[in-house]
């Protein structure tokens, strides 16, 4: 369907248009470079998910790395301090499973929040309910940051 040649228009010295046909870059080297780059971008995104801000730190985006780390950490601290519900794995309904997915978005901070919230969740008061939202927001925000790091690693976004 596609060949390995590129057709370009060029004007010669007399001003007559010419059609130049030349070989393009070998496709296999481009594919290899692209797949390596994608693997690196995926690794950066995963590391950014595991530890909030690490993906941007590896890309030397220090301001973003610090901001993401601090905002996610602060949201987790607030959520755990308000004794929000940190959903455990294996929830029995879709809401619990979605909540677990959102909470797990904080990566390693999920286990930090579990350790901090030694007394367990208490959603009998409004504070606990707000805390649940803070914890879920921290996870979703970290997933967004990991996606941003992935896009930045692929040079699609800076």
């Amino acid at each position, binding site marked *: 369907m596609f060949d390995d040649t590129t057709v370009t228009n060029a004007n010669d010295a007399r001003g007559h248009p010419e059609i130049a046909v030349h070989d393009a870059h070998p496709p296999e080297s481009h594919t290899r470079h692209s797949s390596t780059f994608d693997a690196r971008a995926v690794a950066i995104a995963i590391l950014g998910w595991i530890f909030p801000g690490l993906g941007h730190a590896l890309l030397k985006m220090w*301001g*973003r790395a610090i*901001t*993401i780390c601090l*905002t996610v950490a*602060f*949201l987790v*601290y*607030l959520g*755990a*301090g*308000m*004794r929000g519900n940190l959903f455990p794995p294996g929830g029995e309904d879709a809401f619990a499973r979605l909540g677990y997915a959102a909470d797990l978005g904080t990566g390693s901070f999920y286990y930090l929040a579990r350790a*901090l*919230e*030694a*007394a367990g969740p208490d959603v009998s008061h*409004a*504070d606990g309910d*707000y*805390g649940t*939202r*803070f914890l879920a*927001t921290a996870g979703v*925000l970290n997933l*967004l*940051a990991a996606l*941003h790091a992935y896009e930045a690693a692929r040079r699609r976004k*800076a």
Partner: protein
Amino acid sequence: MTVLVPLQLSHFQCFLLFALIISLAFGTLGRRQPLERLKYATWSFAMFVAVGIALAWLMYPFSR
């Protein structure tokens, strides 16, 4: 033993804190230059607060 200070915030305090933290993150992720980040974060914070208060008033007649 708990290492956390128990937090008791009002609904409005939670709302403002949430808007502030998310706006800071949006500003930092969404823009590159410091001034643009500040403008975007301020705009985002203002929109969070304005839309939140507007929705609260819209829901007020059905709250009781």
